[in-house]
């Protein structure tokens, strides 16, 4: 997945699109991550100043949500569902195997709503059902 390098100017331009929104902080953080792939440290102060919030408010939101990350992602992102329905068809074992092979880019997730065709894995935003290591490798390229 392609992201732009962090730039304060771009960030401010994006924040301006949320000027009319009520309760914009989470949306702002999500917007930063969508553009840059992560939420740069500098964004906390930018968002706080832009929406007249405290840095603590923004930091609190940033650290609450599992989706938000503060370091740039790698070239690929693999999320493996390890919730009950996928556990029932071997997700725990699959997660171990995939983690061993793609250590830096694999994370656990809880449910993609594909619970009848598990194990379910999201590779770079694409959903894979009845996932195997081979299918994940194919989707990753």
């Amino acid at each position: 997945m392609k992201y732009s390098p962090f730039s304060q100017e771009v960030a401010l331009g994006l924040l301006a699109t949320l000027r009319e929104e009520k309760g914009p902080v989470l949306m702002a953080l999500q917007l930063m991550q969508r553009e840059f792939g992560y939420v740069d440290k500098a964004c906390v102060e930018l968002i706080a100043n832009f929406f007249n919030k405290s840095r603590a408010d923004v930091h609190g939101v940033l650290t609450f949500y599992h989706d938000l990350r503060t370091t740039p992602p790698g070239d690929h992102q693999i999320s493996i569902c390890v919730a009950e329905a996928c556990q029932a068809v071997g997700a725990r074992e699959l997660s171990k195997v995939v983690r061993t092979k793609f250590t830096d880019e694999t994370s656990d997730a809880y449910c993609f709503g594909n619970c009848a065709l598990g194990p379910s894995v999201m590779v770079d935003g694409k959903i894979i059902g009845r996932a195997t290591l081979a299918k994940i490798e194919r989707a990753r390229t």
Partner: protein
Amino acid sequence: MRVFVPCDSAALSVGADEVAAAIARIDSTIEIVRNGSRGALWLETLVEVETPTGRIAFAPVTPEDVQSLFDADFLHGGAHPLSLGKSDEIEWLSSQDRVTFARVGIIDPLSLDAYCAHGGLVGLRKALELSSDELISEVTESGLRGRGGAAFPAGIKWRTAAQATSDQKYICCNADEGDSGTFADRMLIEGDPFTLIEGMTIAGIAVGATKGIVYLRSEYPYAIATLQKAIDIAGKSDWLGSSVLGTTHSFDIQIRVGAGSYVCGEETAMLESIEGKRGVVRAKPPLPAVEGLFGKPTIINNVLTLATVPMILAQGAAAYKARGVGRSLGTQVFQLAGNIARGGIVEKAFGITINELVNTYGGGTLTKRPLRAVQIGGPLGAYFSIDQFETSMDYESLIAAGGMLGHGGIVIFDDTVDLAVQAKFAMEFCAIESCGKCTPCRIGSTRGAETIDLIIQGVRVDENKKLLLDLCEVMTDGSLCAMGGLTPMPVKSAMINFPSDFTGAAR
């Protein structure tokens, strides 16, 4: 010539896009309609061909099968090993009672013409003829209860919000379908998003709200894209906007995307999240219907609750409540998941047994090993053994059996499952997802996982089991919301229904 290839993300996960591309490559003159999924997910990718006598189904189709389908003249219903005959005569589907899911899998989700041709907007037009009081009475009369899991009567919630006076009211649709084993909200949004939009518009008219918000989880990128397109289409027609179908009513809908937090499916945590804050639950009262989003009266309903309202208005409350048992009226969209041979959506009236769902529809386990346990109602729901399979699937019977219906998902496990490990996972999940407000949930969940670990290792088993039950009681009684309050349900039900897994001896 029209061929239907589903665009539902479950179908996409097993190659529906590749199947559609393979068909187009061989004959580019075919009109390929990307419908939702009919819900027979083990048959995906289910390809249908429109013929003068009805739609003919072929399934499960892989891209490699496509050439042979053409060779067999599938466009005219030719014989092929994957042919299932007429779609409407597939018993798994035809024996269901599709009300909420009536159009899902049938139509192009983003065709407003197809939507209207299949009964769309009839409910909304009816609603516009009624007074607010009559409209809410109709919803109350239908017996519709909250499908998100709390089962609160929808009409009563609406009445409370309607009676509140405020310059602004909100309709919030809870589409934060985080329970493992549930996917009905996602499939409805991907397969028939206009129904949800219609239900929200009706709710807005009923209580005098002009703004709707759908809180949709980030794990559902396909649903987000489809719903946004549907909202845009409805906005460009005379439906959403300052004059709903030419009347003086005004209604708009915005999507707010979640950020990977399970507890934000709890209604007050969801409100906090929509307000852009940490998803920390609020104490009730005040009820959201009185003081909800941004402090304004707010109706919060699940996707299925709102999406059922148009059908109730179109067909009448009496027709809806003629289905079901006791105080569980109408239909439930059950979801068969996990280690299941024939998984997917089964919409039936309340009162079907676990056995009928899991064995008659589900066909037992995928692995063909003996079925040992089912978890009903998501990660906070109870684990049942096969001894309890004659239990009726309705709100009251499941509570009496020590469980809950939740959002109607059933996860099937074969005999390799270790219920002590599952119980430990329930506690671990709570530790990961707790918002942290209530101590029993925030800390108890970690202590619970540790205690179950000791039981698994055979350390002072009886003493630790007693301690665990005591902890469960504290979590149940001392937590504000269902996260901490119901995490003990899977734990205790596993201990009660599968005692042999809690003896400390390795399974």
